[in-house]
């Protein structure tokens, strides 16, 4: 994974909500905005934003991917940091884009966006240097690190943030570094493998008996939550990391 070494980290940010939050998880996106604002940021939401282009990229349809990414580069132009509550979308910007635009004339335009992309937890901890978090949220949480944050600072940053919240107890679970089985279109192209992977993850998570399954990516939680909803074991409450931070803030009044 190639993460840009120098990224802008000011307190005025462009917010990329992600298509999943746009369609299903408005609560996670709201939480992310409130969390950024608490950290002193002015959050700008460019209305014309759509998607980061990853679904097309992963499907191999790179012309389609480039079309979406070119739109994103227009929508998020400028010099401000682009912050997104998803390690996967952030990685699409700072890693995937470089591959999808190899040999393209506007590679540098996309590279300029890539050089400003941040995953939320990484931005809070390593961009802004947030030292502590107010409030309390008494809960045992199992933290699932999204695979697209492997080799980035996002995983450790998320755990740092969870560690800052009074009352949060992070409980480990078996084979924590294994994928949840989502993988975008992989989940529908290979439904049997994908489902088996997800069920294995859920088994491990359930054994740890957390109050919440927490992740920095709604895509993993869409999959695991969706699977749990159909299983005899029943629903597993899920929260985006930003929602944990938001709940702590609310407790703080």
């Amino acid at each position, binding site marked *: 994974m190639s993460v840009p070494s120098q990224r802008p980290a000011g307190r005025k940010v462009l917010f990329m909500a992600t298509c999943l939050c746009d369609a299903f998880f408005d609560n996670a996106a709201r939480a992310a905005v409130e969390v950024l604002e608490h950290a002193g940021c002015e959050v700008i939401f460019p209305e014309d934003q759509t998607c980061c282009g990853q679904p097309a990229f992963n499907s*191999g349809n790179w012309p389609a991917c480039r079309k979406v990414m070119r739109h994103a580069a227009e929508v998020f132009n400028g010099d401000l940091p682009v912050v997104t509550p998803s390690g996967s979308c952030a990685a699409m910007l700072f890693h995937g884009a470089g591959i999808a635009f190899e040999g393209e004339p506007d590679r540098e335009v996309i590279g300029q966006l890539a050089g400003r992309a941040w995953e939320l937890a990484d931005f809070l901890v390593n961009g802004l240097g947030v030292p502590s978090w107010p409030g309390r949220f008494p809960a045992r949480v199992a933290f699932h690190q999204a695979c697209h944050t492997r080799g980035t600072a996002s995983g450790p940053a998320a755990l740092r943030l969870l560690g800052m919240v009074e009352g949060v107890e992070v409980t480990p679970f078996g084979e924590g570094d294994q994928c949840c089985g989502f993988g975008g279109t992989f989940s529908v192209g290979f439904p049997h493998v994908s489902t088996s992977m997800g069920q294995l993850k859920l088994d491990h998570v359930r054994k740890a008996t957390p109050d919440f399954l927490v992740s920095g990516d709604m895509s993993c939680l869409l999959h695991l939550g969706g699977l749990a909803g159909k299983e005899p074991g029943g629903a597993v409450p899920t929260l985006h990391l930003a929602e944990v931070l938001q709940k702590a803030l609310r407790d703080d009044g």
Partner: protein
Amino acid sequence: MAEQQIDQFTRRLDGKVRRAVRENSAAGTAKRAEILAADYGDPTPLRRLAGEIRQHAIENLDVHLAKAEDSLKRNGAEVHYAVTAGDACRVVSDILSRAGARKVVKSKSMVTEEIELNGHLEAEGIESVETDLGEYIVQIDGDHPSHIVKPIIHKSREDIARSFEREGLGDYDDDPETITRRARAWLRRKYFEADAAITGANFVTADSGRLVLVTNEGNSRFCLAATRLHIALVGIEKVVSGDADLAVLLNLLARSATGQQLTVYTEFIQGPAGSGRPSGPRETHVVFVDNRRTEVLASDCREILRCIRCGACLNVCPVYRQATGHAYRGVYPGPVGAVLTPLLAGKDFPAFADLPKASSLCGACNEVCPVDIPIPDLLLRLRNRAHAERLPSPGSPPMGPFAAMASRPWLWRMALRSGRVMDVGPVQKIPVPWMRAWLNTRTLPEWRGGKFRAWMRDRRKGGDET
């Protein structure tokens, strides 16, 4: 509904086999992590260095290969080149027939699997016996290896006991020690009867002309001890610039493959017996096999040629753990196979273009790779190639319409609003294949398209309360 072949294979797979492969693989992953952490702390810098060593080796292959040839010849070995699998087989049978060799003992070699050497020799009336225990069992079963390092990871000891009984190696007994003793006794006879030994090589050093062979059973040593003729088949990408590189590569190979500090038998073979080398075969032949490796080198996936065949990417891969090796329909299973098999298939690429899709792109393979191959990136490039060649992709939603929508904000906003129909029960019954594939085992959350946008707009208007 059209199904992806790997998904279909997994659905039909015996639960016992799947479980055994999964547990064995997970144990392999844990052992690897443990020994690397104990010996090196964070192995990443070393993996990166090894990656650079291998990348340098393949990017300067023209120089290294010529140098390796000179060094090998200086040491008394004969050097051959084979462009295709067929060429490689013919070179081997020519050498054997010139020497009048009818019986061959063989140590484990993936490139010989790739060129289907055993079948070729058998057709020529030459007996070729695999001496690696796992490969021997694969051979008597007429099966294929399902793992690069652990070829019979998919078999139980009961399976093996039945095979041994069938082959006349004694009555049914599934005690592992008995199985091993029986194979040992039988193979000893074969070593003495053999006229020639065929091996692969894990590395060939350009500066000193050494063949490096690693085995845990010592079978390659036995192969070379009693025969007068040694033929080593080597993929051209196995050449490294020099002995110094081995310090890094051998340390990582053993730890990544089997969780060992050093493979039990690590042999350095510098040519046939002669002055200064009193023992060993009288004749050494090295056959460098291309079999489309130069095509891979010319492609945008050349990093896969760094591979040192440790199998760590198989062990860690969540898809391999569910699907098992035979799902990949090739000599190389798992993530490395999903890249290499389609590339080595040449014009048969379309027949294997589904393999790179059998991945959630989780990146665990790259994280454990001793030579830091960016496997997910290569899988993506092959997906792009499949798309550019207009190959079908069963089960995946079309991305053209998605991109049309995601590049037109007004259309996107309209879709967000109209998505609400998804919550209406009967709509979920519409037979869109990929939708069904999701909903068979998973629910969808309530559609809340546009809600976040509305909230943001309200706040901007000054209603800053939630």
